[in-house]
């Protein structure tokens, strides 16, 4: 790196360094990643803002307790690869987490710089991403110290964040690890759900390749619950099973017109575009409706991803329809901000009541009603109530329903030994992920319902520790 660039002297206050990104008008016409990442200069400058607290609060805010001040110090010292390896002691997917973790609610919300209110917190996520990208692009992954083979076999169901994390931790502890993935590509929601412009698929592939290099076997096209059952896995000699099958069952609103052509679950819309690369049709064979007027129903990150995908597929207008107000929106502020910059319209306090179609069965319009906020509901958020007489119609040709997912029922249905909650989630011990079936652990969205990548990773780590203990007994 450039020798003459020096970190700013610590006494001079350096503002939080912005990450350069694609211009909004350019990026809505491509699927390339929006932020470019820090340059080494920006990273060092940002790292120099960290005051190296004696009792760092940020670590407490991280679900997997990454040694945040330590890795930031390494970046400041321009030891970028060492910084990445420091993160990897706790977090096996830093390039992913640096991009998709809600740092503003976790580590960064605990940063002392932000706490004083006068300054902004250290950009921990951006620095994590920088270090991970640096290692991957400049040094490559190293094989860490591996425990002696134990001869024990562990089956991991699903190759999303929970499964990948559990697999990485278990192989390092000396166990034989096999991942069973239902789709034709490993990565789970990281490949079918999160778009390329937010998480390049090459990064996920690099993480999967790394695990393979460590010796993890990855079986694709294996649907546990259909191709093979959990009792059969035990019969095949697996000593433990970790279920990280995710929250992959889309919810619909149950309003008239939801089965019209042009109405997609966000899962279908994003899977077509991301996993199947429908945006590159006809080079790829899977088609997608390239709507000109698209409405996405929902206010979470998945809704933002869908609305922004619609723009990139050529939509003239792409709107978010959300029944509460902006304050209640579950999406990350950064995602909402990116969506706004790109020209996504926000129809807040709006509830769709009917989708209208033409005689060929294609979407024509969305009938909505305005809402106002009433008393708080069980989630603590103010309950939206209909404003009488406020019905109105939006002309649209595509509707994406992004109102959340239920747990995928394939495993619970095929494994009655595993107890589930009334919502269909698998019941598992908090600290270990142990389910009601001996030897079977579960974590991630299948246990919590739709949540975040890092929480799923935290659960994968906890289960890996518990499985290791059990197998070594």
């Amino acid at each position, binding site marked *: 790196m450039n020798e003459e660039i020096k970190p700013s002297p610590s006494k001079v206050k350096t503002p939080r360094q912005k990450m350069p990104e694609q211009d909004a008008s350019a990026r809505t016409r491509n699927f390339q990643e929006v932020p470019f990442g820090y340059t080494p200069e920006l990273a060092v400058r940002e790292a120099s803002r960290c005051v190296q607290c004696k009792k760092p609060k940020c670590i407490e805010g991280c679900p997997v307790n990454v040694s945040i001040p330590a890795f930031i110090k390494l970046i400041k010292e321009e030891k970028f690869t060492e910084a990445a390896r420091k993160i990897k002691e706790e977090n096996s997917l830093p390039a992913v987490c640096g991009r998709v973790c809600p740092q503003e609610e976790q580590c960064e919300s605990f940063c002392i710089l932000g706490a004083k209110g006068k300054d902004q917190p250290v950009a921990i996520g951006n620095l994590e991403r920088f270090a991970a990208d640096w290692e991957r692009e400049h040094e490559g992954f190293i094989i860490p110290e591996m425990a002696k083979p134990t001869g024990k076999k562990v089956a991991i169901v699903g190759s999303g964040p929970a499964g990948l994390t559990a697999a990485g931790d278990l192989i390092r502890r000396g166990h034989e690890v096999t991942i069973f993935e*239902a789709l034709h590509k490993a990565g789970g929601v990281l490949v079918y759900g999160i778009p390329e412009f937010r998480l390049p698929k090459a990064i996920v592939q690099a993480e999967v390749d790394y695990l393979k290099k460590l010796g993890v076997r990855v079986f694709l096209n294996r649907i546990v619950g*259909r191709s093979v059952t959990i009792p059969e896995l035990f019969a095949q000699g697996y000593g433990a099973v970790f279920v990280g099958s995710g929250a992959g069952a889309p919810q*619909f609103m149950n309003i008239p017109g939801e*089965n019209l052509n042009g109405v997609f679950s966000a899962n279908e819309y994003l*899977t077509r575009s991301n996993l199947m690369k429908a945006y590159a049709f*006809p080079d790829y*064979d899977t088609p997608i409706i390239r709507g000109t007027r698209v409405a996405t129903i929902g206010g979470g990150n998945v809704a933002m991803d869908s609305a922004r995908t619609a723009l990139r597929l050529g939509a003239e207008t792409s709107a978010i329809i959300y029944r509460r107000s902006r304050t209640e929106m579950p999406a990350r502020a950064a995602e909402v901000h990116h969506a706004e910059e790109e020209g996504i319209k926000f129809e807040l306090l709006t509830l769709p009541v009917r989708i209208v179609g033409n005689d*060929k069965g294609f979407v024509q319009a969305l009938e909505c009603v305005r809402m106002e906020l009433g008393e708080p509901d069980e989630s603590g958020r103010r309950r939206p109530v209909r404003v009488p007489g406020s019905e109105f119609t939006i002309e649209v040709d595509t509707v994406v329903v992004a109102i959340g997912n239920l747990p*995928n029922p394939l495993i619970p249905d095929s494994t009655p030994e595993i107890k589930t909650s009334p919502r269909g989630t698998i019941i598992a011990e908090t600290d270990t992920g142990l389910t009601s079936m001996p030897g079977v652990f579960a974590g991630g969205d299948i246990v919590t319902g739709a949540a975040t990548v890092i929480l799923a990773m935290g659960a994968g780590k906890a289960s890996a520790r518990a499985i290791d203990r059990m197998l070594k007994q």
Partner: protein
Amino acid sequence: MGNKIIKKENLAKEVVRMVVEAPEIAAKRKPGQFIILRVNENGERIPLTISDADPGAGTITLIFQVVGKTTMLLRDVPEGGEISDLAGPLGNPTHVDKYGVVCAIGGGVGTAVIYPIAKALKEAGNQLISIIGSRNKDLLILTKEMGQISDRLLVCTDDGSYQIHGFVTDVLKHLLEEGVHIDIVYAIGPLPMMRAVCEVTRAKGIKTIVSLNPIMIDGTGMCGGCRVGVGGESKFTCVHGPEFDGHQVDFDLLAKRLRVYPSEEEKARSSYQPKPK
């Protein structure tokens, strides 16, 4: 690592039978279940019913009609060649029970789907009357195989070029008029045929099961693309089906949902150039 094509033959014009290496699926599959395949890296995922399986040899049999780019690609994979992905078995197996007299109706390539189901129902001790039909003689498939498992087999063609002249529904109506007793009907074939059979049996109060083939992606309940209307509710064909009570199915909706991508399908089909051998 893909799945190897062991054997490939034409059963009729643009109807291909393929024996594919898939030991785990062969060991596991039950009648009525399907697989999802992807021919190559850029390919789409399509569902196909498993027509037969040989667990000993570790193979499954797929029968398909060449209708679009993906089935063209599949047709052109040579014996000994591989398809890149094969996942299954998917969907719920047929509920095989002793009903008494079962009438199995197969239309066109649907006969390939009805065959394993009819076979299982026969093996369960049912009396099996089979009706198979197609547009003309050249498109008929599995007449010999269906004959071997059926107590009575009736074959018809729309143009009268082979055996009975008429539709499968005409044959079914005729049987019922003759006073033949039928406890349950399984009808699988083109959507208008299944709908027509359901109209005939509805009037007579005969339970009728159909197997649906909507557009699908993952086949595990994740995308919801395969939703169909059954008894006024939305069902996912991949996890709730593929077999449903035909009298409850909204065939109009299914017909429309099968026509989501007509121009894209045409574009893909017309631009397809088979690789020179």
